[in-house]
């Protein structure tokens, strides 16, 4: 949990664009589907059944299929939610005093960086590519005065709007 100071309030919570989540999930979805495709298109089940009965004396049943499919789906489902959790817990908090960069790197591994508003010097919005332009997502480069001079907010939706929010808060702090 992030502890806010007495007169600090969260102006905006930013997460990555949903397309980032889709991109992270697509590998798992393909991996999940591959065994089914192999079974349906490349397997002659009669040959497999004959082999199991003649060589291993095992009589397959529909329950075996349900058992295997449900186990595979259960594991894939759990992994899918792990990907979603990683996506959901990555966030940037824009408060009236600072920007908090929270990066969840898998389980039990979390990086939290804080950048004070008065140290922000310059903000650049970067939207690259056809898909990013059409779906309006991109990166924000924030130049700060300090040890780490630039931090990047990557893959967020409506980056120009987010930039305006940061600029507004930075201007308020500067006054």
């Amino acid at each position, binding site marked *: *949990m*992030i502890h806010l100071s007495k007169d600090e309030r*969260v102006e905006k*919570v930013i997460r990555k664009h949903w397309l980032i989540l889709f991109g992270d999930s697509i590998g798992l979805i393909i991996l999940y589907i591959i065994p089914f495709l*192999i079974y349906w298109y*490349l*397997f*002659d089940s009669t*040959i*497999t059944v004959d*082999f199991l009965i003649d*060589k*291993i*004396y*095992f009589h397959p*049943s529909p*329950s*075996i299929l*349900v*058992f295997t499919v*449900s*186990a595979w*789906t*259960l*594991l894939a*489902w*759990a992994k899918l*939610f*792990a990907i*979603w*959790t990683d996506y*959901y*817990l990555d*966030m940037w*908090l824009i408060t009236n005093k600072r920007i908090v960069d*929270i990066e*969840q790197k898998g*389980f039990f591994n*979390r990086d939290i960086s804080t950048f004070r508003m008065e140290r922000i010097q310059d903000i650049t919005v970067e939207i690259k590519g056809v898909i990013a332009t059409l779906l309006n997502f991109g990166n924000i480069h924030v130049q700060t005065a300090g040890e780490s001079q630039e931090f990047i907010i990557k893959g967020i939706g409506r980056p120009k709007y987010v930039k305006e929010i940061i600029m507004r808060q930075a201007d308020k702090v500067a006054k």
Partner: protein
Amino acid sequence: MPPFNEIVLDSIESFDFARPVIEFISDKFSNFGDIVWFIFFVVLVFFTIYSLVLVYHWFRYSIGSLMVWIAMIAYFTVSFVLLNAFYLSALNI
């Protein structure tokens, strides 16, 4: 072109070590029910631990409880259905 599994099975049987391996498996398959339940409990334990870790992270680190509860309901509803199918199929094997 012959089916993929025919190619695989013919390749397996062409190796010298295949016969003792197949005989070993056929001995173990005489007690197939134990193997099924072993797999069942391994998957169940793995899933339980994984779910506990996920729930811990949701409650510990998320901001706003509504999305957490929606995620939990969706996750455990589907998981419940899958676990039921998994368990019932194990019973019927």
